[in-house]
């Protein structure tokens, strides 16, 4: 039913005052409902429809004043603490690399490139910040498949380096944030929604295996489990929570058990904890980094292990500017440098998680958690490998270590995160049509487990 012209004009005037446009429809609906209720009350008192409408609108109050007040309430609020922390991290990273870069081949060239990418990154962050994060819920599938297409294209166009499609691996880190949008869009879709989420997940999973980048494969799996667990606990699928969790975790546990039967993996895991078993083989990096970290002082340059005396740290430790930056600065400046960098990142991550927990809308919660998880995983993986537990190559230390491409990805993710914090407090989850399952998904009859996929 079209609203009365007078009502439409009144609501238009209110909305003209409200700068955050994405809230307009929701406010219009609520206020229009109010006018309708008031009008019906007047009609019940004996007024005709026209007079009732006029009186009802009049009763609402001056539209410019109401609009101005609503604008004040629905104002995006920049999260300054996170913006300041981002800038601090960028500065710290640049400052550290200013010291480490000249000590590595190509270091200075890479330093200037990263400086340029920092500027581009700030641009990307601003772009993602301004484009409201709600588009991740609105166009979830389109964005998800577009990212997959870009990655496939990168794999086709750019030749692999040492058998790996390195350039295609960076954008993979954007998947969890987009996957959060996909999970949100499956709301109220029952078990088929949970299964569809699993099918969507296989796309980035397969891509990460093709690249291959096992560090990212593990991260994608972790974020998949976390996002779906939160969504199930928030009752997004309208299904029995325990059954849905089983549906998510059983395939994961089976894959995990199968992986654990691989002798090579078990051997690698053993070396992670005791690298001295293969000091010249797969345990080399673990052994070296442990030796260097053990010799580090609280403040000032540390000592190298006895068997490496007479050599410089740059001669024994590769990638001091990127993968082993933390080991290197700990050796050169002491644990104090390690503590400052890690504390700054921890502060960023903890603050981000605290703000995630405050989100009321499920979309905001899922997206911000997915992004924060990316930073937590990158940081934890980097710190652990730099302390001598080396299973897979680390990704990058967000905004700190040398990696121009990861920097762009991280800055885009921060843009999304800041966008959630900026407008998340005003966003309400949209209504999804109810699609209840007619029959239960899992039934136990005469000692038999019956799984009904509702494929009919």
């Amino acid at each position, binding site marked *: 039913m079209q609203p009365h012209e007078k009502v439409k004009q009144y609501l238009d005037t209110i909305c003209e005052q409200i700068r955050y446009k994405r809230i307009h429809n929701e406010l219009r609906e609520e206020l229009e*409902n109010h006018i309708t209720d008031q009008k019906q009350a007047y009609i019940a008192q004996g007024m005709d429809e026209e007079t009732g409408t006029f009186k009802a609108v009049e009763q*609402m109050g001056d539209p410019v004043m109401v609009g101005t007040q609503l604008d004040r*309430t629905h104002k995006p609020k920049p999260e300054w603490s996170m913006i300041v922390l981002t800038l601090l991290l960028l500065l710290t990273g640049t400052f550290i690399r200013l010291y480490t870069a000249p000590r590595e081949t190509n270091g200075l060239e890479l330093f200037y490139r990263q400086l340029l990418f920092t500027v581009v990154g700030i641009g990307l962050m601003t772009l993602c910040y301004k484009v409201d994060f709600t588009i991740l819920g609105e166009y979830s599938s389109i964005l998800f498949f577009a990212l997959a297409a870009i990655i496939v294209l990168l794999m086709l166009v750019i030749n692999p380096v040492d058998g790996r499609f390195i350039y295609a691996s960076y954008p993979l880190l954007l998947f969890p944030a987009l996957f959060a949008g996909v999970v949100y869009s499956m709301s109220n879709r029952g078990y088929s929604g949970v299964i569809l989420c699993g099918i969507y997940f296989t796309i980035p999973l397969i891509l990460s295996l093709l690249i291959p980048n096992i560090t990212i494969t593990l991260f994608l799996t972790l974020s998949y489990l976390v996002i779906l667990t939160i969504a199930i606990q928030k009752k997004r699928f309208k299904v029995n929570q325990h059954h849905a969790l089983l549906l998510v975790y059983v395939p994961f546990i089976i894959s995990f058990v199968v992986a654990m039967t691989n002798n090579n993996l078990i051997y690698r895991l053993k070396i992670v904890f005791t690298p001295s078993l293969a000091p010249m083989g797969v345990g080399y990096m673990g052994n070296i980094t442990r030796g260097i970290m053990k010799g580090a002082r609280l403040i000032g340059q540390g000592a190298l292990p006895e068997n490496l005396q007479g050599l410089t740290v740059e001669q024994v430790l590769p990638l001091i500017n990127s993968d082993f930056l933390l080991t290197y600065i700990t050796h050169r400046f002491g644990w104090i440098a390690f503590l400052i960098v890690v504390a700054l990142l921890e502060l960023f991550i903890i603050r981000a998680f605290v703000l995630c927990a405050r989100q009321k809308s499920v979309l905001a919660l899922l997206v911000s958690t997915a992004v924060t998880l990316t930073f937590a995983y990158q940081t934890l993986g980097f710190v652990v490998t730099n302390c001598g537990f080396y299973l897979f190559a680390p990704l990058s230390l967000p905004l700190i270590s040398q990696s121009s491409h990861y920097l762009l990805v991280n800055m885009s993710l921060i843009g999304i995160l800041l966008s959630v914090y900026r407008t998340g407090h005003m966003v309400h989850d949209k209504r999804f049509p109810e699609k209840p399952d007619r029959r239960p998904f899992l039934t136990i009859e005469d000692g038999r487990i019956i799984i009904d996929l509702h494929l009919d």
Partner: protein
Amino acid sequence: MEIDKSLISGSTTMLLLKLLEEKDMYGYQMIEELSTKSDNTFSLKAGTLYPLLHSLEQQGMVCCYESEADSARVRKYYSITKKGKGLLRDKKAEWQHFAFAVNQVLKGGTVHATT
């Protein structure tokens, strides 16, 4: 009797929270209830109600959900949260203290004249 608006504005939050403490309501219903319960003394305008209600929601004092009113309309209901109940308690205590003091003065007595 018409009441000076400035007298009401300070206590609107308390009155709204009190209404929601009894049951979940939608905006129009709150105005109606408030009017009925106060013998038409409080006639709150929609333009005052919604900005206040929305900021209470952003502060986590109330939360909202949607429920179908009829086939064509979906209404937004508000419900008081635990935090909101805490605020209501504080506001009530503050109000009682204030009303007591005002009454004392009006009676001509002195509240703290013990020196």
